[in-house]
């Protein structure tokens, strides 16, 4: 009945359907409410982006912010908050405000401003998803926007240096995580047994912290000490996303991802071969020269795989 809806957003890694918190929120909400979205990950094509991802395109309507996208989905009768009372709806708004004020700055900092994280993980990952000249400019721009936002909203006069601001925002973020954990308690979702908008937002913010492997991980370590929040993320991933993580839309399958899969298979095959050879060796210890040849083979095999990785 509804016109086909396409969502374009950043792709995923480390077991997540997307790395960008807002994209994750929209995808989670779509899954919760049963909205049929085709997800297109931003890739190397030269198509001009219609706005910052996540962007929803339905016929001629282009909507770009998560709150507006969720409103649009609700108007199309895909409403995950149907069973909520008015007070719970009010609580949803309040907790989303809490997330944006307290947790988002630290999330942005971990991704875009912490030097080690940014240089070794975030920038290469995002750069690999965009076409060439833009990939030199866009990650830098996103980083500058994040820094700007943090300094303008949190960097008031008593906090004169970036390190003080950082200390403050991480304190706030840890407090926010503690509050969320207390609110969730032992329930499966925030409002009973079915997930709602609030669950989508919390998932969108928590999952990147939880799953992405950064060198500097103080927020992730704090999150891992709150087992009910970790369980919450894992539950949503297994119940609502497992079907699509391995089989994401073919149009969005990155060549780099395909290469990575092939490489993993190759390495697995190699290690299986090596294990088999080891077993053979153990059964026949009187052939030491063969050991050397197998090592050479293994070395040769491993050298060939980085070669195949470099080739585009």
């Amino acid at each position, binding site marked *: 009945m509804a016109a086909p809806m396409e969502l374009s957003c950043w792709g995923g890694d480390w077991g997540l359907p997307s790395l960008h918190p807002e994209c994750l929120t929209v995808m989670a909400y779509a899954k919760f409410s049963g909205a049929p979205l085709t997800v297109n990950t931003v890739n190397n094509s030269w198509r001009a982006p219609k706005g910052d991802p996540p962007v929803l395109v339905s016929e001629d309507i282009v909507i770009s*912010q998560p709150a507006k996208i969720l409103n649009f989905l609700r108007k199309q009768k895909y409403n995950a908050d149907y069973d909520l009372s*008015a*007070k719970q*709806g*009010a*609580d949803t*708004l*309040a*907790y989303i*405000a*809490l997330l*944006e*004020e*307290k947790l988002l700055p630290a999330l942005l900092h971990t991704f875009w401003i912490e030097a080690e994280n940014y240089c070794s993980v975030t920038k290469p990952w995002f750069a690999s998803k965009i076409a060439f000249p833009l990939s030199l400019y866009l990650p830098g721009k996103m980083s500058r*926007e994040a820094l*700007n*936002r943090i300094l*303008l*909203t949190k960097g*008031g*006069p*008593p906090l004169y240096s970036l390190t003080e601001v950082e200390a403050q925002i991480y304190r706030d973020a840890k407090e926010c995580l503690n*509050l*969320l954990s*207390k*609110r969730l*308690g032992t329930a499966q979702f925030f409002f009973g047994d079915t997930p709602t908008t609030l669950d989508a937002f919390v998932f969108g913010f928590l999952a990147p912290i939880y799953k992405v492997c950064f060198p500097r991980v103080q927020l992730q370590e704090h999150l891992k000490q709150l087992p009910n929040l970790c369980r919450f993320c894992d539950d949503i991933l297994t119940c609502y996303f497992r079907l699509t993580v391995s089989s994401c839309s073919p149009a969005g399958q990155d060549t780099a991802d395909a290469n990575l899969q092939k490489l993993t298979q190759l390495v697995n095959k190699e290690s299986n071969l090596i294990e088999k050879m080891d077993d053979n060796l153990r059964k026949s210890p009187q052939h030491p020269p063969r050991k050397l040849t197998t090592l050479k083979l293994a070395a040769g095999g491993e050298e060939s795989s980085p070669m195949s990785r470099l080739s585009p």
Partner: protein
Amino acid sequence: AAEPWPENAALYQQLKEEQILLSDNASSLAVQAFLQMCNLPIRVICRANAEYMSPSGKVPFIHVGNQVVSELGPIVQFVKAKGHSLSDGLDEVQKAEMKAYMELVNNMLLTAELYLQWCDDVTVEEITHPRYGSPYPWPLNRILSYQKQWEVRRKMKAIGWAGKTLEQVLEDVDQCCHALSQRLGTQPYFFNKQPTELDALVFGHLFTILTTQLITDELSEKVKNYSNLTAFCRRIEQQYFEGHEKDSSTIAARSSKKSLLR
């Protein structure tokens, strides 16, 4: 043990009649309400340079003993360290809710007030610029207001509010008031019998919106739609502010003073 609260504790804000703006007035009233609820006496002192005296650049700030603390959040913590607290009786989940609702008010109401004051051209020309620079001679008054306007607009752009139209901002205010109204329901205060800092914050913002005369009445109309919120404001005003006519003002007095200005 509770430390004694000095007699000469003072709260500083900008000049009430000519200079103070909607958002600063709301913040100041919230702090005054909070201190009244804690039963801590405080004098309100109006100074033209209050913003510059404040340690964080924001008003209001309180001067207690030899310490200066600004903004509601730090003031609540400071008062708690002195042994007075309104939210001790709440359990953990309720405290989480209270913090979340306070962030909602700051996120939506305060930002909407700032937007209206500094990003809506008509309001800026007719109300904000004349008021903000009123204690200073020309050209300083224009320079200071333009500087502040540039700062606020930069912040709006960073959080994504620069692209919003006035209607969208009013929609957000309506949504926020709806949420607050739902949460309050028929109770006297947000956490039933006892007022907390959330009540003080909500009162500060809603009362100021209801009693400040702007170019149009759209903002106060949005709040008036919710009768339990207006009743809430009236109740707190009667309970905590009636006895002190010198420092605070009732609804009638406020609007008559404001109507003398454009």
